[in-house]
């Protein structure tokens, strides 16, 4: 009988004998994976939604007076001095009026007695996609406010700030749940293996005395760790996928979830979560075994 056949038999025997403890550990690992991947899934979907929304991000600079062609060119130069921009568009008073009437639709009658130049001229600045952080947008807005002839700068400041703080909060939640996953999975697997070792102390000591190598004693426990990590992450991700399918099935097409396309993890992230879970569980198992083998 070769080494691997022998340790696989040992592992199978151990799993059979301690199935209840193994099952509880597997459940804990899967809950940890579920908890972490749940928040992570929300996080990446919010980020993706944020990317889509920020594609529409534009800063509007209201001007005192409508600039002529020469002044427009000067202003364009002044704006691009701060940073490269995707687009700078001048909106004349007439264009602003025309847009407004379109927006009013059937209620445009309310403008009948109003002059066509009562709305201010403005500049629409579409920043580059890399102008992502809130601070950068703020700084850009402050800079635009200093342009001669500028009355006011608007960019949906409150919304951008809320979104920014929301993603920050979500990052912290993901980070915390990730840390909890690491601690819980490692601790639980280490405890299970330690309990198994205590329960099998006599056998393991006998194995040493009859000439079992450290690898022969250790490998079944490492295989148990791998098994725990694999099964735990599989169950956790399956539960999350079921929850995801149920949520998208019940809430798609209406309300909040309709704002963006809700997607599941790409295969690389699934593989990473499974691998991470296996590595953590194996590490938990390894540390417990090392303590025993040092005795």
């Amino acid at each position: 009988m070769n080494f691997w056949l022998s340790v696989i038999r040992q592992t199978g025997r151990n799993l059979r004998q301690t199935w209840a403890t193994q099952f509880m550990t597997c459940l804990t690992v899967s809950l940890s994976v579920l908890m972490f991947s749940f928040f992570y899934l929300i996080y990446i979907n919010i980020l993706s939604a944020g990317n889509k929304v920020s594609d529409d991000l534009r800063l509007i600079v209201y001007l005192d007076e409508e600039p002529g062609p020469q002044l427009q060119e000067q202003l364009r130069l002044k704006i691009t001095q701060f940073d490269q921009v995707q687009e700078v568009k001048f909106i004349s008073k007439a264009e602003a009026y025309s847009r407004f009437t379109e927006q009013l639709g059937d209620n445009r009658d309310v403008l009948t007695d109003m002059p066509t130049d009562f709305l201010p001229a403005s500049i629409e600045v579409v920043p580059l996609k890399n102008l992502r952080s809130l601070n950068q947008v703020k700084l850009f807005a402050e800079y635009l406010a200093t342009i001669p002839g500028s009355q006011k700068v608007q960019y949906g400041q409150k919304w951008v700030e809320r979104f920014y703080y929301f993603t920050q909060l979500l990052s912290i939640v993901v980070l915390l749940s990730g840390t909890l996953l690491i601690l819980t999975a490692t601790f639980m697997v280490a405890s299970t293996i330690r309990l198994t070792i205590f329960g099998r102390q006599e056998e393991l000591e006998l194995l040493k005395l009859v000439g079992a190598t450290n690898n022969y004693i250790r490998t079944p426990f490492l295989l148990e760790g791998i098994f725990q990590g694999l099964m735990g992450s599989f169950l956790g991700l399956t539960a999350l996928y079921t929850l995801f399918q149920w949520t998208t099935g019940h809430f798609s097409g209406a309300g909040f979830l309709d704002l963006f396309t809700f997607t599941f993890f790409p295969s690389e992230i699934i593989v990473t979560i499974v691998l991470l879970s296996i590595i953590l569980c194996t590490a938990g198992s390894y540390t417990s075994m090392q303590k025993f083998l040092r005795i």
Partner: protein
Amino acid sequence: MSESPATTRTAMIEMIKVGKEFPPNVTALADISVSIASGEMFFLIGRSGAGKTTLLKLLCNMERPSNGLIEVAGMNIHQVTGNKLAKLRQKVGVAYQDFRLLTDRTVAENIAISMEVSYKKPQIIRARVRSLLAQLQLEDKHDMLTGDLSRGEQQRVALARAVANSPALILVDEPTGNLDATSTAQVMELLARCSNSGATIVIATHDEALYRHSSNRVMKLHNGKLDSLTRGDEL
């Protein structure tokens, strides 16, 4: 005192000025020097507490000597570690005084352990287990848990496990303490067969009948010291 067989055959065990002390200041063994040849059957006798079990524990590396040198198969066993120690232990079969059986495992599983660690094929393990159980008249106990056996049966299973892997050195602590005359004869026959096939056997015993009329060497310990070393039929 008889001439040491180690002078004519290769020595399996070399002990030079070996001593063992336990804290605070209990001297279990002192100044033991002996050479045991390959294939020799060697008896350790002495009253309880004389140091027989301690000597066996030193030989199988369960304890470390406080001083002196112990070599088994040419290796200082207390300097060997890791895989080399594991390989060495595979060549040493030990039947412990307290048996050290896994009481929640079957007789067959207990005997198989010593062969599994050296990766013997399952069919070879099965055949060897059945053969040993037949020699010790325990065939019907094959699938019984060792916890359900009598002391005498457990003792024989422990011996079967010690010899199962055909080790070069067999250490046996009180092999017949719980056995009747028939079982004792079976055990001694099994050990004699192992000896004939080249294994060195060291037996710690109180049972005079085992060595009294044999030509095997007998070492008597008294309060941890070597009292006498002579042939059994010269006692």
